[in-house]
């Protein structure tokens, strides 16, 4: 809400802001021992601000800049060396000038501010030498002639407007396309195709105008690092690579805070004090490095440090302490599962709260912000060596191809980027129930199912409606797949993604909205949000079919310490179980397809030869009556290759916390448990693999 400002003043404000950003950056670099050529650039920038301010009547800006200019002149002419005191005084000047400019923008005048301390500091640097009232006329330094102007300054609002208009153009094109096919006007098709091409190209070009180098988001960081390092008593160097990597403006803005937060963490909790570093054999100066690059359709941004690294054992202990995991479970957690703990709100391994980065983590907020722009964040760390955070953003334009589906009579759009395939499933037949959650077996792999109608209706869900055949859209989110059961699949379409309004911001089910060809609004579903809501996306890498959220709250469904087990019948009446995670596939093999090859049984599968053993025989419980026609084979990958375990029947997948009761001594069996009220052998897969090898050796 700025007062009506003169065009000249607006330009002065814009240019001065940019100049101050440059000055800030150069000052920090100079203090670290950068080339003295930077002083000339800083001097010119401050000089220009002073001159224009004086011309426009902003005397306080002029006076402050004048004092700064004095210091800079001395620096430039070699009289002064830029030390900590000088840099701080000049940076203080940058801050106060910034505030004066902000005040001008807001109220049209230089507001109530006390710049006296800053001026004092600057004069102090000069040694209180008497100041000239006006700078003597200078000989302008000889500059190389500027390169021919190939760039123009454009107001960001104008670019946004262009982007919006291009979006509208695409919409109208879609409408025309729909009408043309209906009205059957052949003469229209030619120009329509041209329009199509033009609209696509225009949209791509305009999207490019919104691209900005990521260096813009990094601009404040050198100074932040300087100040933080000083406050925390560390010695830190900031290295930036790939700052020219371009990103869409809105994504850049969204990533500013997360990146800053990660850098703060790196200095506050990552980099060790110099004495500790030296004792560890590292250089006393720590390094925080920012790296950005394009690769395979995404932009990757890395924030890494060569400091402490994450102590996973400590993370696990903290998790137990906060009651997030049970003790024994914590010991068995993978790095990926432990990383999930880090992202929980309120989680922090920091021993004390520091004023710098508060509780030290706040990674849940970082992740939320990264995911808002459809990105992902991961971490790699080695204790004692350092930590690297990786943010990956898929390159998206505002117009995306989407799949249109219906639920409850309404249409929804799913970005094609999340869609793996569409399956017309006989859900009744192919669907297996796992406890209370449906799971569909697709080409041998178990796919958790999410019912869209259910997820949208929420707690007022009607009873299970009877639908024999339904469409299942296989979606992928966070490297995990699940099947979304929808009423029908309508069409594919190119849609313009529009953000949801403020009142709808928190809804993780949707990533935006769009206007369809007929003018109606359709919500865009977020594959990850849906999966999270239905709890089919978990932490960790195990392929367990998770449960959909139960209607009643209260009882904690997540039983920590529970394991996913695949329950099978080894032979009629004899049950066994193996960890689901150890089974990479379940194949249905025709008994005739099992061949004998050099004394072993094998089956040809996907071009490979898979050795097969009959578990019943291995365990010595083979009571084979009539051989089955189709034999379920569990494929287990082990260090030496893969082994197919032929069983009688697949019974179920359960999540159980199994106590192992004894009966040691039986080869291939770890123990027994009671699962679903039946005695079930817990198979020792390693032993089975060994046994299988021995048997074939013996032949």
């Amino acid at each position, binding site marked *: 809400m700025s007062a009506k400002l003169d065009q000249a003043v607006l330009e002065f404000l814009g240019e001065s802001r940019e100049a101050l950003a440059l000055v800030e950056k150069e000052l920090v670099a100079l203090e670290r021992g950068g080339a003295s050529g930077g002083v000339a650039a800083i001097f010119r920038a401050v000089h220009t601000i002073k001159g224009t301010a004086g011309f426009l009547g902003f005397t306080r800006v002029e006076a402050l800049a004048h004092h700064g200019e004095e210091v800079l002149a001395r620096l430039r002419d070699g009289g002064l060396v830029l030390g900590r005191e000088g840099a701080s005084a000049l940076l203080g000047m940058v801050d106060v000038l910034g505030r004066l400019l902000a005040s001008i923008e807001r109220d049209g005048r230089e507001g109530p501010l006390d710049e006296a301390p800053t001026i004092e500091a600057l004069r102090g640097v000069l040694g209180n030498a008497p100041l000239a009232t006006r700078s003597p006329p200078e000989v302008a330094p000889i500059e190389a002639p500027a390169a021919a102007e190939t760039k123009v300054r454009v107001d960001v609002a104008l670019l946004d407007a262009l982007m919006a208009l291009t979006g509208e153009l695409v919409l109208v094109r879609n409408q025309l396309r729909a009408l043309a096919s209906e009205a059957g006007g052949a003469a229209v098709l030619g120009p329509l195709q041209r329009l199509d091409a033009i609209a696509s190209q225009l949209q791509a070009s305009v999207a490019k105008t919104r691209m900005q180098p990521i260096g813009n988001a990094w601009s404040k960081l050198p100074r932040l690092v300087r100040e933080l390092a000083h406050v925390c008593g560390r010695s830190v160097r900031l290295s930036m690579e790939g700052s020219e990597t371009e990103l869409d403006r809105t994504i850049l803005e969204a990533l500013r805070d997360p990146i800053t937060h990660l850098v703060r963490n790196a200095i506050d909790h990552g980099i060790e004090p110099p004495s500790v570093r030296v004792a560890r054999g590292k250089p006393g100066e720590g390094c925080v490095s920012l790296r950005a690059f394009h690769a395979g359709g995404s932009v990757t941004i890395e924030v890494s440090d060569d400091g402490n690294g994450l102590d996973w054992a400590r993370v696990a202990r903290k998790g137990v302490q906060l009651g997030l995991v049970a003790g024994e479970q914590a010991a068995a957690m993978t790095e990926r599962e432990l990383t999930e703990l880090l992202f929980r709100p309120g989680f922090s391994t920091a021993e004390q709260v520091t004023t710098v980065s508060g509780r030290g983590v706040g990674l849940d907020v970082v992740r939320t912000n990264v995911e808002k722009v459809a990105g992902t964040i991961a971490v790699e760390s080695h204790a004692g060596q350092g930590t690297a955070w990786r943010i990956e953003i898929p390159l998206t334009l505002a117009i995306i191809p989407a799949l249109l589906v219906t639920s409850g009579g309404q249409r929804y759009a799913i970005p094609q980027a999340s869609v793996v395939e569409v399956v017309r499933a006989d859900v009744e037949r192919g669907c297996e129930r796992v406890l209370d959650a449906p799971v569909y077996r697709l080409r041998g792999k178990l796919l958790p199912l999410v019912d869209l109608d259910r997820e*949208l209706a929420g707690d007022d869900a009607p009873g299970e409606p009877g639908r024999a055949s339904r469409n299942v859209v296989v979606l992928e989110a966070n490297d995990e797949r699940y099947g979304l059961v929808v009423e029908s699949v309508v069409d594919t379409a190119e849609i313009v993604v529009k953000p949801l*309004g*403020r*009142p709808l911001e928190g*809804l993780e089910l*949707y990533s935006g*909205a769009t206007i369809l060809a007929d003018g*109606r*609004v359709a*919500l865009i579903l977020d594959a990850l949000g849906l999966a999270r809501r239905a709890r089919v996306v978990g932490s960790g890498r195990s392929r367990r079919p998770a449960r959909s959220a139960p209607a009643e709250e209260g009882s904690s469904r997540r039983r920590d310490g529970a394991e996913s087990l695949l329950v099978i019948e080894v032979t009629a009446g004899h049950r066994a179980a193996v960890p689901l995670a150890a089974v990479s596939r379940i194949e249905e093999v025709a008994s005739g397809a099992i061949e004998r090859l050099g004394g072993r049984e094998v089956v040809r599968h996907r071009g490979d030869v898979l050795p097969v053993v009959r578990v019943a025989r291995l365990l010595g419980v083979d009571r084979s009556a009539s051989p089955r026609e189709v034999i379920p084979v569990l494929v287990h990958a082990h260090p030496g290759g893969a082994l197919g375990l032929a069983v009688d029947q697949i019974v179920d997948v359960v999540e159980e916390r199994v106590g192992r009761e004894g009966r040691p001594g039986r080869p291939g069996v770890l123990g027994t448990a009671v699962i679903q009220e039946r005695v079930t052998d817990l198979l020792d897969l390693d032993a089975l693999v060994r046994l299988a090898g021995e048997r074939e050796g013996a032949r």
Partner: protein
Amino acid sequence: MSFCTFTLGALLFGIPVERVLEVLRAPATTPVPRAPRAVSGLVNVRGQILVALDLARRLGVAERPAGAAAMLVLVSVEGGALALVVDEIGDVVCPSGEREPPPRTLPPRTRELILGVHVVDGQLLLALDVDRVASGERERV
């Protein structure tokens, strides 16, 4: 100060004219499952997707019967435009006299969203606090 007026049931409300972008018949609304109750859905107004807020629900006053015709009042708020679903549009009025505090007879939830009242032609005009209405669904305990 001139107000754009509209009714919700028997109550008359007003919004300063400079906040009102447009008034139109409510087009087809796309429902948003799992959204806060007061959100009626999304509407397409000349290519712009706007959130339609059912003002009666937001204010906690008697709701219009399902299927009854409604009007939209588009207001400018921080972050863009918001569509308020109301019953009928009234005239633009310019009340003389001061704004009085909202009467205690109004339920608290409604009262918090009203800036005050004017008396116009013997009727009570409730001045709506548009920014508060737009700023979220948090229930005040």
